[in-house]
């Protein structure tokens, strides 16, 4: 007779597996299924409220990538999002690394205070941060003019959030400002884990602080740097709140701050004259899902497998 699966194991596993499967895994795959249907049975811009859907295969994807109605917004959002991510990686990671390296140096005073305060913005709601920076950068209030004025650079001020090029950079910098604490903490934790013997050995061999950092510490924490990059990647292609708070769904000026998240929301729920389109929304979400999955797979197979890990 086959041995029965012990009941208590099932009892322990069931609630978590049930909720996770039904409300997380199922919806992710069901969204892909929905993306293969259309509700626009009578052509473009018809009433979407009916629940009749027809299977159309990959037509939605074809439309999303090539049909003018969608493709401009899609490629624009993807381009902005990639830019947003590249700015994060190239600015947030070095700042986080620098602060973590400083904080991990021995007998530095006040390091707990620095650490706590630098991590503080990461605890705040992105929506609060967005509105707050809208006020700070507002022409009416004049904070940046005052600050630039102190160092005599007042002429450098521009209404950054309102200009097509600088708006996305400004918003990226705000997001970087908010989340620098996360790489800082992860790098700091990784640096603390390096055993003293290794660092002492380097010192005895005559290696200075810079050499030690780049040739001993950095290679040792490289796995953490990789982890941080992929976490940033997933977070960035999923970003929504900051643009929504600062720019609403217009993602202005001229959609120059539009990201995949805001594009998804507009497509799904509709915006201004355009009606909401659930199946096209599902297509945008599934495409984003594919982009994120691709990044995660590249990380798992190309980076994590190859990078050397040291066990202490």
């Amino acid at each position, binding site marked *: 007779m086959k041995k029965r*699966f012990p009941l*208590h194991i099932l*009892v*322990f*596993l069931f*609630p*978590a*597996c049930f*909720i*996770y499967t*039904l*409300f*997380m*895994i*199922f*919806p*992710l795959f*069901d*969204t892909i299924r929905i993306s293969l249907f259309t509700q626009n049975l009578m052509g473009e811009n018809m009433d979407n409220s009916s629940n009749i859907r027809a299977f159309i295969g990959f037509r939605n994807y074809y439309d999303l990538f090539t049909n003018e109605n969608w493709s401009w917004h899609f490629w624009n959002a993807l381009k902005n999002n990639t830019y947003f991510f590249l700015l994060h990686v190239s600015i947030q990671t070095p*700042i986080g690394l620098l602060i973590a390296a*400083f904080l991990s140096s021995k007998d*530095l*005073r*006040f390091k707990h205070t620095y650490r706590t*305060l*630098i*991590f*503080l*913005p990461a*605890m*705040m*709601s992105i*929506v*609060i941060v967005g*509105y707050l920076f809208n*006020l700070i950068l507002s022409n*009416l*209030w004049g*904070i940046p003019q*005052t600050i630039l004025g102190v160092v005599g650079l007042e002429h450098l001020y521009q209404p950054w959030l309102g200009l097509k090029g600088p708006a996305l950079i400004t918003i990226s910098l705000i997001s970087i*400002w908010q989340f620098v604490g996360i790489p800082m*903490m*992860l790098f*700091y*934790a990784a640096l*603390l*884990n390096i055993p003293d013997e290794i660092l002492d050995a380097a010192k005895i061999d005559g290696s200075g602080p810079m050499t030690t950092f780049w040739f001993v510490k950095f290679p040792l924490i490289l796995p953490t740097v990789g982890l941080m990059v*992929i976490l940033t990647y*997933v977070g960035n292609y*999923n970003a*929504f709140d900051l643009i*929504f*708070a600062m720019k609403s769904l217009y993602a202005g000026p001229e959609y120059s701050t539009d990201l995949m*998240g805001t594009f998804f929301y507009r497509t799904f729920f509709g915006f201004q004259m355009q009606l909401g389109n659930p199946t096209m*929304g*599902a297509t945008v*979400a*599934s495409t984003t*899902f594919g982009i*994120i999955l691709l990044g995660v797979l590249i990380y798992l197979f190309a980076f994590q497998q190859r990078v050397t890990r040291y066990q202490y």
Partner: protein
Amino acid sequence: MNNVKDKYNHLIMHIVLLSYTLICIFPVYLLVNNSFKKRRAIFKEPLSLPTEETFSLVGFTKMFSRVDFSIYFYNSTFVTLTTLFLVLLFGAMAAWALSEYKFKGNTMLGLYLAFGIMLPIKLGTVSILQLLSSMNLVNTLTGLVIVYTAQSLPLAIWILTEFMKQVNQELKEAARCDGVNEYQLFFYIILPLMRPPLATVAVFTMVPVWNDLWWPLVLAPSGGKQTVILGMQQYIGQYVTNWNAVFASLSTALIPILIFYMIFSRQLIRSITSGAVK
């Protein structure tokens, strides 16, 4: 000679760290500070602390006369605490099963559950909305709790499994010899031992749930079921030109998190640096 160099290095580090710390807290200072000032003072002297002359609570009185923030606070608190309870209970149960019992598919199940750490649940929105509306859970707090629980479980299970593997084997065997059954073992012996990692999971669960905008916006946008963040967002959308009210509502939404962070920052930072997230 070396000592002088060390001192010089430390000086540079302090200058860099101090300037960056100021950059981090300056906007927060501007926000909290100006929410207690008169309108004229906000514009005239944004940097200075409120004095007897410029101090005013006009923003807060205005805000509380227009919207009932206490409802939003109740909603956010209810959603966050219920989610927390479910995540800790179900997460710990699943983590216990994964770490303690050998059964077929254990590793696969662990991987399946860990899959969700990297995947953003937001991308399932179209389907989740359909699912919850078929269950009549749109515009309810229950709907939010369910989604947040599903979203928070993977990381909770992963962290807790790591810690449960370290529980002393002899302790468990001794308990079993005394005739304790598996449920009693878990609830009376293992769970109390897991307090520190449960606290870590609690912080990682609560902060994103409290701060979230997406799900309240999608699932519970009206009908008095808004959370603090969404309520604040909707309020600011209407009164964007009243600076006092805007500052007051931003502060109101921020202060609970500031207090929470002041109390738990040590615990949080210790749990991050002790390798809970490796």
